[in-house]
């Protein structure tokens, strides 16, 4: 418990820091008024608007207002969209979540069997091929892969749509584009691009863990006892590789979230990432500040959850050792 409480305190400090960065960003920009009213407004009108927006107040007053509003989930109005920022984030979030989930599942479903296989048959031809491909997988920049996939599957073969999110369906009360055929066909290429890097990383991690475990006395004893191969690999070896793998997956999830920005850009996926890039391109400071704070919150929370899982599965941590 002590461990988790420390973590909670730590998380709040992180959030305060992130909020400070968010506010500084919010403050630092040239002229939000110009972004709001366009170029043809007279100087007096702009000054009047500055006053009304509270941009002439002392910094400290503005900071207090910023934090107060942020606590209520109010990040102000986007300069370029003229809309509530929190509303826009809520609108874009489902698209990013479904992309991250789909590619996460794809990565695991492919990486675990491939990792085990390459760990066991490490000199085999297929295993060597998989490993060679995995080097390319972790090396190829995702934007480049995305462009090439569009070129091949959309332009040359015309099999898959090149951009956007497909139709949305409802299943068990959840609305997602993954529940329609059209939606899946739109999601396939972005998810494949997004998962490839994680696929390579997790595959190599599992293989390395398998190699380590297979050398242990524990496994040698299992062989010595004459147990069948399948049982040794699946029961004894795999079980022991999974603990470090599970912890790594927690980190990979946040990394998927980060890489989704690039994938969303390439495939015009209407998620949080394209929103961030729009905010940067348009100097839309409220949007940028809100994104910073929101992502900080998501990562801090997900880290807390991962920590809680550690505590649950590893008794050593519960007793203060780490």
């Amino acid at each position, binding site marked *: 418990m002590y461990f988790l409480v420390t973590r909670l305190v730590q998380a709040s400090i992180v959030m305060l820091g992130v909020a400070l960065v968010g506010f500084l960003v919010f403050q630092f920009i*040239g*002229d939000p008024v*110009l*972004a*709001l*009213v*366009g*170029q*043809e*407004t*007279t*100087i007096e*009108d702009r000054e*009047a*608007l500055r006053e*009304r*927006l509270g941009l002439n107040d002392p910094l400290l007053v503005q900071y207090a207002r910023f934090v107060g*509003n*942020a*606590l*209520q*989930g*109010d990040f*102000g*109005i986007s300069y*370029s*969209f*003229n*809309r*509530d920022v*929190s*509303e*826009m*984030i*809520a*609108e874009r*979030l489902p698209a990013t979540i479904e992309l991250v989930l789909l590619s996460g599942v794809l990565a695991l479903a492919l990486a675990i069997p491939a990792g085990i296989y390459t760990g066991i048959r490490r000199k085999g031809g297929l295993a060597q091929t998989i490993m060679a491909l995995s080097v390319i997988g972790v090396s190829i920049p995702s934007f480049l892969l995305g*462009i090439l996939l*569009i070129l091949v599957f*959309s*332009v040359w073969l*015309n099999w898959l*749509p*090149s*951009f*956007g999110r497909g139709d*949305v369906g409802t299943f068990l009360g959840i*609305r997602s584009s993954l529940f329609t055929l059209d939606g899946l066909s739109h999601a396939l290429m972005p998810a494949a691009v997004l998962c490839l890097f994680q696929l390579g990383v997790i595959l190599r991690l599992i293989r390395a863990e398998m190699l380590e475990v297979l050398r242990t006395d524990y496994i040698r004893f299992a062989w010595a006892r004459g147990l069948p191969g399948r049982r040794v690999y699946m029961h004894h070896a795999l079980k022991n590789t999974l603990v470090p793998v599970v912890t790594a997956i927690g980190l990979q999830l946040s990394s998927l979230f980060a890489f989704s920005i690039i994938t969303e850009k*390439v*495939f*015009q996926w*209407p998620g949080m990432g*394209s*929103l961030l890039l*729009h905010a940067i*391109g*348009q*100097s*839309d400071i409220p949007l940028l500040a809100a994104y910073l704070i929101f992502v900080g*919150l998501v990562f801090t929370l997900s880290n807390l959850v991962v920590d809680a899982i550690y505590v649950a599965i590893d008794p050593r941590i519960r007793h203060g050792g780490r």
Partner: protein
Amino acid sequence: MPTSLLKSLAVSLAASVTLTTAVAGALNAETLRIASQGDATSLDPHSHNESFTNYFLGNVYEGLVGRDRNFEIAGQLAESWEQVDPNTWRFTLRPGVTFHDGSAFTADDVIFSMDRALADSSNFKHVLASVDSYSAPDDMTVEIVTRAPNPILLNDLLDLMILDRQWAEANEAQEPINLQAEEKAYSATNANGTGPFSVVSRAQGEKTVLAENPDYWGDKGNVTEVIFTPINNASTLVSALLSGEVDLVMPLPLQDIARVEGADGVKVVSSPEARTMYIGMDQWRDQIIESPVEGNPFKDLRVRQAFAHAVDAQAIIDRVMQGQATLATQYVMDKVNGFNPDLTRLAYDVDKAKALLSEAGYPDGFELTMDCSTDRYVNDGQICQAVVSLLARAGIKVNLIAQPKAQFFPKVVAPDFGTSFFLLSWTPSTMDSLNVFQNVLGSRDLDNGRGAWNISGCSIPEADALAEKAAVTMDAAEREALLKDAMALMVENVCLVPLHVQQLVWGAADNIDVVQHPTFEFPLEYFNVN
């Protein structure tokens, strides 16, 4: 998690449920799927004066007057008008028109919309700049009194969109931007006009769905539903057209013209656009900025002429614009009233440029900085790079600052005018060159609304006088002569270096009929799906 975020999530989910039912109900519709590189920045017709936004909203909202299929000014919400005296115009409104929500259109809505266009946060105050007062003698009549005779009042009124007073008041959208209490502006995301199409759903930057207005008063084509998707990557845009995911791409990236022309089932549609590109040189400051040079070389006419001679505008047209532009001789294109056919441009001649620079005291050229947007005009970043390498041949070393428009405009426009060398362009939305004199060419006089876009700070008082005279001259021929003379003066003084007049280039599926206007309007009521 902040509660309002969750609440908005719930609201947006509910909104998308209604969206799917609406789409499902319109299966037999003639759907037109349009993709463009940008999106309308707001649904409020008085908030952002940006040409794409204005013309997008022109399908939803209407003004007293508008453009017909042949680009002539015709009555929209006004059925007819007469000039009672040189300063007083009386408009008779079209009877029986309703807004999309069913409420009736009356003169009160016109008065409300004019008030609103003059509000603090409105970006359309200029359309009523010449207006002294306005009133509604009865429900179907509006009277507008100008300060001085205004021969182009109707052109000015083209951009004034009419909203419903009850709807705006009920939704606290009396002003274009409602920032008080930090509430979102309802009219930025919702619309209620009288136009041929109504907004069914809107996810900005993602997808906007329009449906035909069944009660529309005028004629319209067979398009019943419009799905509009912004796609900001040029190659994605074209692949969407080629793979049949969209029916119309506007504008079509120039580098893809050949590909679209060679493909089956799609075509390229093009016509001249009223947008003239030019490069500007700071003639205002005594010391140009962001340059090691002493003083301001651009105050010397010979230096400005040298720049004009050094830039091979034809090469830019051939190579950067893929031939989709024509050489500009002046600061408006030939369809704009006030175009002077007698003017010619300074020929491309590097030796002449070098000689002029030597005469002016810069035999080895000089170094300066150029500001350029990369996402505003067709191939703007590339045009600037070409200008940089062309000027290098005349000994001018240019440091290029290529930046997104969100950074470019705040830097170069009033009040700072923070540039000494730049690329810009202008479309006179009134199709009258007076608009260019008021905004771009007239001596800076910001208090009186003149020269707000005169970033080069050039000032030819004689031309100002001619333009001022034209502004109040009711006789069309006399007025045109004045504007032509004023233009000749500006060109003689090389106020700006004109580059080219670009073509409007769209890519469309073969079964789509479109109407192109030189101001980039896209009146969807004239479009057809065959």
